[in-house]
């Protein structure tokens, strides 16, 4: 057993950290305030090849499709300065580009994957609907075959990158078996007639990340745009989310780390009762708990990534990583605000943003309740 990361992975961490601190961190506060991703950072992230991390070179990516640990490290380091950018890149790569690489036909890869991997186009993944969140099988957006085209109708909500994406993966109902819906995943170009972006959400956290409603009115999609075969949508979505959760976990590790670093700095500076607050046991215990929670989350995240890279069944590991990491980030950012006292509520201190940014991770890509359900189901069926 070896816990060390490779020299290449160390370099990826070092450079991503420098890049994130140089270009993303200085504009993070402004982006949060304006609910807008900085266009210059967009350009730079594209140049850095971060939009094609887990995609092979021949499809325009960086070639780290078998190195999910590096992928996690990148998302972690971006998340350490700005959770919004971490989720923008994480979602684009993990639940749009990567599924196209895994499930796509050669034509689909040529047409849709390459522009995603090079960062020419941004991707979004649309599953959630107003009446179907945790119960994803309850989606109502429908697709009906008409000649050589599928006709999509319905609407999706809360799609990350939705309002700025050019390529969407959309889950829609394509049939019924008894009381169960059958669905399929469609690749939809946002230039297609009948598609429109609805409400852009104004949120508590990850404010710079675009979260939008997507509306489909008789959107005609060519037959070739079904991903992974008609009727296989449910299985594909589950697999997509298994992978995606590793990156949500990574985002949380980065965010938690940022909260810890800010807290350590503050605890070593701020004085009350004639000494640094870091000298008080009440603060020390919080720091210790934060450190333990973040390190556990990091190990679980890398373990899930490792299992994925080694062809092992990593679904349970990624659920555990996502659950532990999102709760670690929530706890760490909560403590970080507490350690900062009143200043922690002020916009002048980053921990105010960190605290708001953490919450969503306990919700998207499966709430903590759903993760516990999935994990318990797996464990209860397991023989030890």
């Amino acid at each position: 057993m070896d816990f060390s990361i490779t020299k290449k992975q160390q370099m990826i961490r070092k450079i991503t950290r420098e890049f994130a601190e140089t270009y993303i961190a200085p504009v993070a506060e402004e982006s949060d305030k304006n609910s807008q991703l900085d266009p210059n950072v967009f350009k730079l992230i594209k140049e850095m090849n971060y939009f094609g991390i887990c995609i092979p070179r021949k499809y325009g990516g960086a070639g780290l499709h078998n190195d999910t640990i590096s992928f996690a490290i990148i998302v972690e380091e971006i998340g350490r300065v700005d959770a919004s950018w971490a989720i923008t890149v994480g979602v684009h790569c993990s639940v749009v580009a990567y599924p196209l690489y895994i499930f796509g036909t050669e034509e689909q890869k040529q047409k849709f994957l390459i522009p995603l991997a090079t960062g020419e186009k941004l991707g979004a993944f649309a599953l959630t609907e107003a009446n179907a969140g945790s119960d994803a099988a309850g989606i109502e957006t429908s697709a009906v075959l008409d000649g050589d085209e599928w006709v999509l109708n319905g609407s999706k909500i809360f799609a990350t990158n939705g309002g700025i994406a050019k390529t969407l993966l959309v889950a829609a109902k394509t049939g019924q078996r008894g009381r169960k819906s059958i669905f399929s995943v469609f690749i939809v170009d946002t230039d297609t007639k009948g598609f429109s972006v609805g409400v852009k959400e104004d949120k508590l956290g990850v404010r710079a990340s675009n979260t939008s409603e997507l509306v489909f009115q008789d959107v005609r999609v060519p037959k070739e745009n079904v991903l992974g075969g008609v009727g296989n949508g449910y299985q594909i979505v589950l697999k997509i989310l298994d992978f995606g959760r590793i990156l949500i976990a990574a985002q949380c590790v980065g965010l938690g780390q940022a909260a810890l670093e800010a807290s350590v700095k503050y605890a070593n500076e701020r004085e009350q009762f004639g000494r640094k607050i870091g000298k008080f046991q009440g603060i020390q215990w919080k720091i210790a708990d934060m450190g333990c929670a973040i390190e556990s989350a990091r190990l679980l995240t890398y373990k899930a990534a490792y299992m994925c890279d080694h062809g092992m069944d990593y679904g349970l590991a990624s659920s555990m990583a996502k659950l532990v990491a999102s709760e670690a980030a929530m706890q760490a950012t909560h403590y970080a605000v507490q350690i900062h006292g009143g200043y922690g509520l002020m916009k002048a201190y980053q921990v105010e943003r960190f605290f708001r940014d953490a919450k969503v991770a306990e919700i998207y890509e499966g709430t903590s309740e759903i993760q516990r359900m999935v994990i318990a189901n797996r464990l209860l069926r397991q023989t030890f």
Partner: protein
Amino acid sequence: MKVFVCIKQVPGVAEVKIDVTTGKLIREGVPSIINPVDKHAIELALQIKEEQGAEVIALSMGPPQAEEALREALAMGVDKAYLLTDKEFAGADTLATSYTLALAIRKILQESEKNEKYLVICGLQAIDGDTAQVGPELAEELNIPQITYVQKIEFKGDKIIAESALRQDEVMVMETRLPALITVLKEINIPRFPTLIGIVDAYEKKEVVYLDTRQLNADKRKIGLTGSQTQVWKIFVPQQKGEHIKLSGSVKEMVKQLCQYLKEDKIL
């Protein structure tokens, strides 16, 4: 054309701490970085490659862990990297260092096309030693012209025209034929970040070639501690003695203030 870039791995200065009791640098846990101005040298070499076409070769003398600095240079886009490493190179001063670097450059030139023109680029100085001597001494070793403190450079056929800011408030424009050596200032450019593809290639497609005393056929009297004309006797943190007063204002005002202080201290 070949462009050689000489880089040094140094302790990241922002993090360097000094043990107050022993007065020594604490190196443990301090991350190593490419000497900051050397990154500008690499950037310049890459720009020359992009504009003129050239093979960019990075050289570093140092312990095996300096390979990391060379990998980073490769990730930025450098074509080849050589690490001059040997126990016998240890303790080298600027003279022994430039001798060793010159051997490597000559060796590489011997193995390539005859009379291929070349340019050597060094950063002005390293943040740990701060001597600014290796560049000029290397030019002497190679017996080629040098332009130091370069803040801008232009190619004209076989020649380069460089702006040197050697003296404060004064820019000298100089021209020389290649081969030549220049040392550059930070002002010359903004170094690029290695892309993800660059990093992956640096580890999977490119290599760092190790060169030791034997491969360089080095004269043992000229390398390492033995070859050094200067030796570090002691590194210490200067003790602050007494108080410092900084005077400001016009010369007249400052003189007046100074006299007053001297009177107060009963010196005048």
